[in-house]
């Protein structure tokens, strides 16, 4: 069978074997959870509780404040101990933080009313997705209800089971262990979008997941095997591989009649609708050569990553950095008191041996980055334009088409940090535009 894929990309060592065979384990309810108010893309939700107030598990504690914003629920039963500020790794700056101290080891739930999705109106379903505070669990953490109400006609739902980031295996485990929940989630999304066709794209390194899902295919749900290549799971590349449609430059998947949802998000949607459970915990992979026993864990949102590293057997070897997410796009954290967030798909502990010492040299114009760029850009030209502060030229070279996948920097023999330059370029250009 021919595997579907896109042009460009790279093949970093997969390292999935570290954790792919360890089933999801539920982590204990932490003594304290640390919740950033900013858990998703868009504007921060409005706080509904005060310091000292008692909260129940799954109680709504902050409410979406604008169109692009998501509700937040308490992951534990306890009391709001503090409302303070702490460094936020995604924002790169201090940000509002709630500290909730657990008062009961047993959850006192405040669940939502279960919904029978088959007989209910799509509007009620999407309202539930919104109410449950669901965001994209693949990493970008975009509020899901927004993505599920596109202003354009959609004909296909794509479920992203590519999990192309090395090391991460949580989606793999979800597909194996929560296959039925996932399928129900997909059916709910299909109903919301009013589409007849859903395609689950899975990289071919997860053959067991493909087989498991195939048992449930039919009724408009199809499973396809994708070539194992990074970034196969990037939305635009995924759509190109599966449907051979190209999202126009500057456009969104809906411009080609597609909505993409991650497998974890689909499972969360099932739980929100069928079980009435808001997004208060998620699966994530705690892995890397830097922990003793890499695992897949289900943990409450706001769990300090140090506790999860402990749970994975503690540190191993000479640790160089700890990353939220995968090694290609993840964010390195300054310390391990940082908690997990809704968008945290993994905690990656990398040793010095893996990260190596990076000595950057001049570009030798080898062309590898051009070949690797899944957006067909010229990263070697782009980073130089940004360095030379020629922002307008960089934009016409495709600065904003860059999906920051890191393929260029990964492959570069001169170890150039294209992504750092390009991110900076985008930021400066936006700031300059605003200044005008």
């Amino acid at each position, binding site marked *: 069978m021919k595997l579907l894929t896109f042009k460009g990309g790279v093949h*970093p060592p997969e390292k999935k074997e570290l954790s792919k065979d360890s089933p999801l384990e539920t982590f204990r309810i932490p003594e304290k959870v640390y919740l950033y108010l900013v858990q998703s893309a868009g504007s921060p939700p409005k706080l509904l509780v005060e310091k000292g107030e008692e909260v129940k598990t799954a109680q709504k504690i902050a409410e979406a404040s604008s169109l692009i914003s998501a509700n937040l629920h308490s992951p534990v039963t306890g009391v709001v101990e503090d409302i303070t500020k702490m460094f936020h790794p995604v924002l790169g700056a201090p940000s509002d933080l709630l500290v909730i101290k657990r008062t009961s080891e047993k959850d006192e739930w405040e669940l939502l009313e279960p919904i029978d999705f088959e007989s209910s109106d799509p509007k009620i379903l999407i309202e539930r997705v919104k109410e449950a505070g669901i965001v994209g669990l693949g990493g970008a953490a975009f509020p899901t209800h927004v993505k599920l109400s596109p202003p354009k006609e959609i004909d296909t739902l794509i479920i992203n089971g590519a999990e192309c980031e*090395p090391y991460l295996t949580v989606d793999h485990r979800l597909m194996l262990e929560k296959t039925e929940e996932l399928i129900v989630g997909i059916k709910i999304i299909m109903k919301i979008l009013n589409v007849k066709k859903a395609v689950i794209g899975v990289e071919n390194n997860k053959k067991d997941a493909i087989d498991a899902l195939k048992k449930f295919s039919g009724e408009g749900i199809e499973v396809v095997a994708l070539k194992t290549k990074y970034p196969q799971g990037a939305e*635009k590349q995924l759509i*190109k591989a599966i449907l051979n449609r*190209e999202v*126009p*430059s*500057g*456009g969104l998947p809906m411009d080609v009649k597609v909505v993409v949802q991650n497998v974890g998000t689909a499972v969360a949607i099932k739980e929100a609708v069928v079980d009435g459970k808001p997004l208060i915990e998620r699966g994530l992979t705690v892995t890397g050569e830097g922990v003793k026993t890499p695992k897949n864990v289900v943990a409450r949102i706001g769990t*300090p990553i*140090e506790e999860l590293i*402990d749970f994975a057997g503690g*540190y191993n070897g000479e*640790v*160089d*950095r*700890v990353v939220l997410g995968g*090694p*290609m*796009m*993840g*964010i*390195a*954290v*300054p*310390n*391990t008191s940082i908690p997990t967030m809704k968008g945290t798909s993994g905690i*990656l502990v*990398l040793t010095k041996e*893996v*990260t*190596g010492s*990076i*000595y950057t*040299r*001049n570009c*030798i*114009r*080898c*062309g590898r980055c*051009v070949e690797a760029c*899944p*957006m*067909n*850009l*010229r990263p*070697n030209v782009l980073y130089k334009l940004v360095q030379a502060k020629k922002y307008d030229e960089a934009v016409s070279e*495709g600065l904003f*088409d860059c999906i*920051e996948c*890191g393929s260029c*920097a*990964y*492959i*570069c*023999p*001169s*170890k150039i940090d294209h992504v*750092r330059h390009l*991110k900076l370029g985008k930021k400066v250009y936006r700031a300059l535009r605003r200044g005008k």
Partner: protein
Amino acid sequence: MMVRTFKTTTAPHVRHPDDTSKIMRDVLIALIPVTIFSGFIFGWYAWVLAIVGVFGGELTEYIIMRFFRKDKNFIPDGSASVTGLLLALNVSVKLPLWAFLVGLIFALVVGKHIYGGLGANPFNPALVGRVFLLISFPVQMTTWVKPYWTKFWMSPWDMVTTATPLAMLKEGGSSAINSLKISDFFIGNIGGSIGEVSALLLIIGFVYLMAKKRVTWHIPVSYVGTVLIISTIFWLINPEKFGTPIFHILSGGLMLGALFMATDMVTSPVTPKGMLLFGAGCGAITMIIRYFGGYPEGVSFSILIMNAFVPLIDSFTKPRKFGEVKQNG
């Protein structure tokens, strides 16, 4: 619970193990067979030039970086040895050592570092050095010795000089080169620059680089292919005057140029399409110089001329951005 602190670096957090110095090392390895062989053909002095090229190149670059560009953290990347070795392979064994050194320093200073060092130079530094030597020492650079099979103890000063096959052709037409056998070209039993002697060993070296994924076939194939097409046409028109296609391909450093000089990453296009255009341009200009120009060979000049067109070729062959709306589409 012990909180640990770490440094924060930007993604990606893993990198491909290849780096520039590994690429340069492999280019040097690829040139070893032809370098060793050249000593057996032209005597031990060829080896002296090669060794001086490698170490002199590194030393020169080190001095430039540390004392003129004041880079205290400079770690050599091996590109200067590649330039030095290529320059050695591109001169006549009659060139005195001091003249070679002058050429080497010129190559690195004027060919490379005045532009800002590796990656910033538009022209192939070894070819810049070679052309400088051709202009400054025309006699020594174009006095070729007759090859002496396996007599590596011979010193170049005792060797009999000869004309290169291309010069013979230019002087006396095809009949002047009738005595030369194709196998001699292929194996390397002909007069010429040190490194242009054996097409076979050059190809072996290049295949090694391809196997290591350091280079692609595009430039050599389009370069040699273009030469093949043009020389076939001319040969069919006038076999008396123009020489056979195979002769053109195997002589005058064409193989060395197409495989190792034109493929220099820094001074060639980045995309496969661009590389094909670049190679074709090199081939066409080489043949124009050979047929109509003042020099009998033309490889160096054609590559240097095409080097100047690389920015143009690059922007002409820019890949279509993903999702870019096709015009009139």
